């Protein structure tokens, strides 16, 4: 652990867009010694493997591909004077705060005045979805597929089924195209495509049959996938395929924060934070997709930068003390972030972010101590961003989505 400092001002766990943006901003604000700890061999996060989406408009003023965007974020953080330690994993988070780290050189400890967790997100796997059938090779998440295709130059299958229709599923289609893989079907349990228009046109353009209202009931095959069983309207049918791409249903990568004893929000799957990105331990902050499933790289970048500003204030002793004022959630809402409001102004998370538990047309409202302070009618879909102003004052806030009858 010779090249790693034992003590820093800010340790950032995770070198994706949120962590790199925060590192850059903290250095700009002269926050002292800032260390970004990245477990992969290269920092940059998820965009490294996305060779096909527009990135960087807000951050760099021009459209970029994922890998170039990731490199630019890294270069910017390094130019700002942040130290990047790659190939280093954080295995435990303890009081202090202290981080237990491990790398090729073995294990070590790093003490920090403040810690920022930006550990990002992962897709729910075949196991997490508890899909039935056998367990042959050739069942991958989008991330796993991209690791094999872009990372290793391999083609794990030729005629897979794609499960899910979130935006990432269309990224899986593009990855397949890149590798000469021809998906035989796209399967969605819901009644409609989850991703926003126009991504939904992609399967039709590429001639991939789309099966809405259809469950992937089972996978067949011993060594490799041979077929899948699709269930729709009570009927089952078998479809020959040699692979399955299980996409989306993102979950925050929250194991470290959870094992570290930070208060966990089962609704988001991440740690609870206040509007400064501060977790239940006031020396530990969180930003980016660890806070909730799932936002764009640009959103995470902006959030990392904003939380970094709050952390600079915390280092200077200028942040309002933590408060236990919780944002209540009612109606058809899946989650709300931030979960707690400390008050005192200049928040890092400038809005209340909520997401619908299911497709619903209705009224989204915010009230404080029973008095409505904001409301609007909307048509809510799961996985779509919905924002409300942060509640002011010192009363108890509640956000509610009431479906129209």
């Amino acid at each position: 652990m010779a090249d790693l400092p034992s003590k820093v001002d800010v340790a950032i766990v995770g070198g994706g867009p949120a962590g790199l943006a925060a590192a850059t901003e903290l250095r700009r604000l002269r926050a002292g010694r800032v260390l970004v700890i990245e477990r992969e061999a290269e920092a940059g996060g998820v965009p490294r493997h996305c060779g096909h989406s527009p990135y960087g408009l807000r951050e760099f003023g021009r459209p970029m591909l994922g890998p170039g965007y990731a490199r630019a974020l890294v270069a910017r953080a390094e130019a700002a004077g942040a130290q990047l330690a790659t190939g280093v994993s954080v295995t435990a988070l303890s009081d202090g705060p202290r981080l237990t780290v491990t790398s090729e050189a073995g294990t070590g400890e790093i003490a920090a005045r403040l810690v920022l967790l930006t550990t990002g997100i992962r897709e729910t796997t075949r196991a997490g979805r508890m899909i039935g059938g056998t367990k042959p090779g050739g069942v991958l998440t989008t991330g796993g597929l991209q690791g094999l295709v872009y990372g290793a130059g391999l083609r794990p299958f030729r005629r897979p089924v794609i499960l899910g229709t979130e935006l990432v599923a269309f990224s899986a289609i593009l990855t397949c195209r890149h590798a000469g893989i021809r998906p035989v079907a796209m399967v969605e349990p819901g009644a409609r495509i989850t991703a926003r228009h126009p991504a939904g046109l992609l399967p039709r353009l590429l001639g991939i049959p789309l099966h809405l209202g259809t469950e992937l009931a089972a996978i067949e095959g011993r060594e490799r996938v041979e077929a899948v069983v699709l269930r729709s309207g009570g009927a089952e049918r078998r479809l020959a395929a040699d692979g399955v791409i299980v996409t989306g249903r993102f979950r925050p990568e929250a194991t470290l924060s959870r094992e570290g004893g930070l208060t966990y929000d089962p609704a988001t799957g991440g740690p609870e934070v206040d509007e400064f990105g501060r977790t239940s331990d006031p020396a530990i902050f969180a930003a980016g997709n660890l806070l909730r499933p799932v936002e764009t790289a640009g959103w995470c970048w902006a959030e990392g930068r904003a939380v970094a500003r709050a952390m600079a204030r915390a280092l200077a002793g200028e942040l309002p003390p933590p408060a236990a004022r919780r944002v209540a959630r009612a109606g058809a809402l899946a989650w709300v972030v931030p979960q707690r409001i400390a008050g005192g102004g200049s928040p890092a998370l400038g809005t209340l972010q909520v997401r619908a538990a299911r497709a619903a047309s209705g009224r989204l409202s915010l009230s404080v101590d029973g008095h409505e302070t904001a409301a609007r009618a909307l048509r809510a879909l799961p996985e779509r961003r919905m924002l409300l102003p942060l509640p002011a004052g010192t009363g108890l806030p509640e956000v509610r989505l009431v479906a129209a009858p």
Partner: protein
Amino acid sequence: MPSEPAPPRGPFDVAIVGGGVVGCALARRFALAGAAVVLMEKAPDILDGASKGNSAILHTGFDAPPGSLEAACIAEGYREYEEIHARLGLPLIRSGALVVAWSDEQEAALPSLMEQARANGVSDVAPLTRDETLALEPNLAPSLRASFRVPREGLIDPWSAPLAYLTQAMAHGAEVLRGCAVQGGTREGDLWRLDTTRGDVSARLVINAAGLYGDLLDEALIGRRDFTIRPRRGQFVVYDKPAAALAGHILLPVPTALTKGIVVCRTAWGNLLVGPTAEEQEDRATAPLDHATLDALRAKGEEILPALAGHDVTAVYAGLRPATEEKDYRIKVHEGGSYVTVGGIRSTGLSAALGIAAHVLRLAEEAGHGWQAPNEVAWPRMRNISVAAPRDHESAGNGGIVCHCEQVTRREIEAALSGPLPARSLAGLKRRTRVTMGRCQGFHCSGPLARMTAGAFDTPMAGNG
């Protein structure tokens, strides 16, 4: 494709058919007794049948039928595991178990179960009231009635243990033939000549440890069978590591005549598992998962530990137990002492394997077999992949972590792909290292792993053609 040594012709002293936990323990026991041993496994790697999916518990045998062969083998197997595990670098997490009653009827059954435990030599069982139980395990649902504690039940690594047994056997000259299916055989004089997919193999003593295929092997070799295997499927749900903090003890239900029931326990790797189901099926080869059953298991787990509701499932799996018409093991000497069937080792094989091996060695000696035991015993040490001891990533020169979820290093993977018994399938590599078995199920490590294993497996992770 890597190749193992050319087909040996023998004659061997002992030919063991089946590379499950029982076959591996037999290979060790006979090799340590001085016999020239060959072990044949039809799959590309060992532990590919019944031994690949179980609850990873070292049982005391407290609930076995008193006086049964099973009870005796578990007791002897437990003692030997306790004695040898440290020298082989194997974990034993002494978690203890609680047998928890959830109804009047179950509560009424506890005293007789404790009596049964004492009859099986497990004399340290202790009754606990509801409050005492909750004080020990505060996350248990408060609707429980009472329990008793079995202090010596523990958690082990069900794959490193048999691998250690077989590695020790190999250190004493045992040969291992993988991808070697026994198709038939004849006795010529005092020698068996086995017809296998890797050529003829001859031996003086043949031991059938073919697990789910035990009855079929008996038929092929001795022309009859004393039992019929009835594969019993057990599905499991595995939760992510933060869930392991919810239960210290192994949480057992009050068993029924048919099954030990649904267990909730930590694993040696720091996860929490719920299972198994007990579902009879015809198929001996595959144990399919069923979404509704897994959902029900999950619900059952949350009934026992309500706080499980907020935890992520990271893995699901199913195993097959080689049950027969009878509960007890089916171990029998045939053909004038030249053939031993070790069959019907259902759900307790992991705990009993070393005891079964010792029992079968005695049977062989009684039948007139005998060898000169080596003067010195080799103790190959397994690389620790459990939470019971420091992991490889904590020491320098590990090559960096490849699988982040299970913290598997490049050095560990390289070691598992080389050595006396290299992994020959992704499944075999997983069992040796835990790679890809964590919460992301290969999201991060599939790419690097495909590159590292290129050329090592019979079925590659991914083609590039």
